[in-house]
């Protein structure tokens, strides 16, 4: 089997420790914020979308240009969404960013490298090339503020 290549490898050239060496292939459920419906655009790294917000550190740039934001469980995803609604009301409510639906999928080692989840269950997936990650996700509900 050949070396697996990251899908957005060319976007992160020159960034230090990207993705970090503690990212590993995993077999687990994943939840992601989605805008309206699932399509290829729903799984674009946020740094490739417009308009971008600033990514100031190399570690932020790494996640933004090659990673996908995910959660390990439904509760964590919904809880963080509510917190974001309270802080950045307009951007979250107007759906120009973040999304309004929650999608669920089951990640396998073939899909890419997962960063360790933080205390809220958030982690970043660095997708491998030639994946159709959108095909393993389906919408499970609305996100509400």
């Amino acid at each position, binding site marked *: 089997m050949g070396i697996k290549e990251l899908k957005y490898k060319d976007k992160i050239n020159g960034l230090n420790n990207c993705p970090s060496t503690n990212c590993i292939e995993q077999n687990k459920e994943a939840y992601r914020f989605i805008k309206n419906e699932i399509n290829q655009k729903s799984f674009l790294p*946020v740094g490739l979308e*417009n*308009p*971008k*917000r*600033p*990514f*100031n*550190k190399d*570690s*932020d740039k790494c996640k*933004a240009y090659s990673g996908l*934001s995910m959660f390990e469980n439904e509760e964590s995803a919904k809880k*963080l969404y509510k*917190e*974001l609604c*309270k*802080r*950045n*009301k*307009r*951007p979250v409510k*107007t759906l*120009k*960013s*973040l999304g309004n639906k929650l999608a669920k999928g089951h990640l396998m080692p073939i899909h890419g490298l997962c960063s360790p989840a*933080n*205390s*809220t269950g*958030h982690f970043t997936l660095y997708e491998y090339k030639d994946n159709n990650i959108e095909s393993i996700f389906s919408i499970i509900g609305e996100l509400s503020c």
Partner: protein
Amino acid sequence: MLDINGMTFKKDFLPTFLFIKDLQYFEGTLLAEYQTKKGETYVFHWCDCSDTLNRWLVVRVSKRSLLQFESGLSTLHNLLYRDNLDETYYLLDMDTNQEIKKCFLVQKVSLDIEYLPEEDTFILPELIFDENENSYPILIDKNWDTDDLASFPRKFIDICLLLKTSKNDIKISNDGKWDGGLASQSFYNNLRRENKDLKIKAIQYASPGYIQFSIEREIGLLVKENIDNYIENKDEITSTFKILEHYISHYELNQKESKDFINEHKDFFMEKGNELMKYFSEPSWSWIIKVSEDEFKAIKTAMSFYRRILFLSKRVLDKKAMFARL
């Protein structure tokens, strides 16, 4: 994006904003700290967006109110709306390359409420993705005399050093003779020599002011936890300490030349040491015993820890010091 009830102006009239750090981050900056060349502090709050632009609410704040927010002692709403320094805000529309496309000056009273967070929103630790956070602030208030102000950071650093040593399970070198406070001071001086990076980062003496330390946030929070532990159990802890103090004085243990006396008092030290430390989160009595040369030195380490926590706790109870809680 919402229509703005304010005045537009050219971006040339804006001060130069230098990025300091992200305060809250999720898939890009949500809230960030900036500084002008004049040293003024501004926060940029992501408040709106369109298909092509992000809008930022730009607010001038004091360093202290920012530290209050960062410490979990004040809300985001207070930082942006109650404690801000001007009667006007900037609203900046920036494109995907972070270039300013439009600037507005808005009166505070005219700002759309949708651009402000809910009133009960504190800083969210989950949205701080800074793995290298090594700063811990303490806010200071009311009147401080010079001695007090000099001792306070020193005692805080002493506790941090002990907790850092305990967390990393490092053997402590307290091989000097314990003789009242002097030897305990030299014990902490040794710890300080081994941890030169732990120091004061910034200080503003004016009351209300703040002291910021270069220390892992986690250690600073552990000091706060121990202070809270003390305040909650102060009667029990003080009573054990007084018994120990009286016992050591009664048998004149500080004045003993050889270590022969230790065996005779060992059981008492073990019992009271455990009793004194059981209320604190860390260091544990078992760790102190493990890294100490003998039971007497262990009890003196526990007592020196208590004295420093007591000193810091008194300033908290007098509302002279507020420790970051997040």
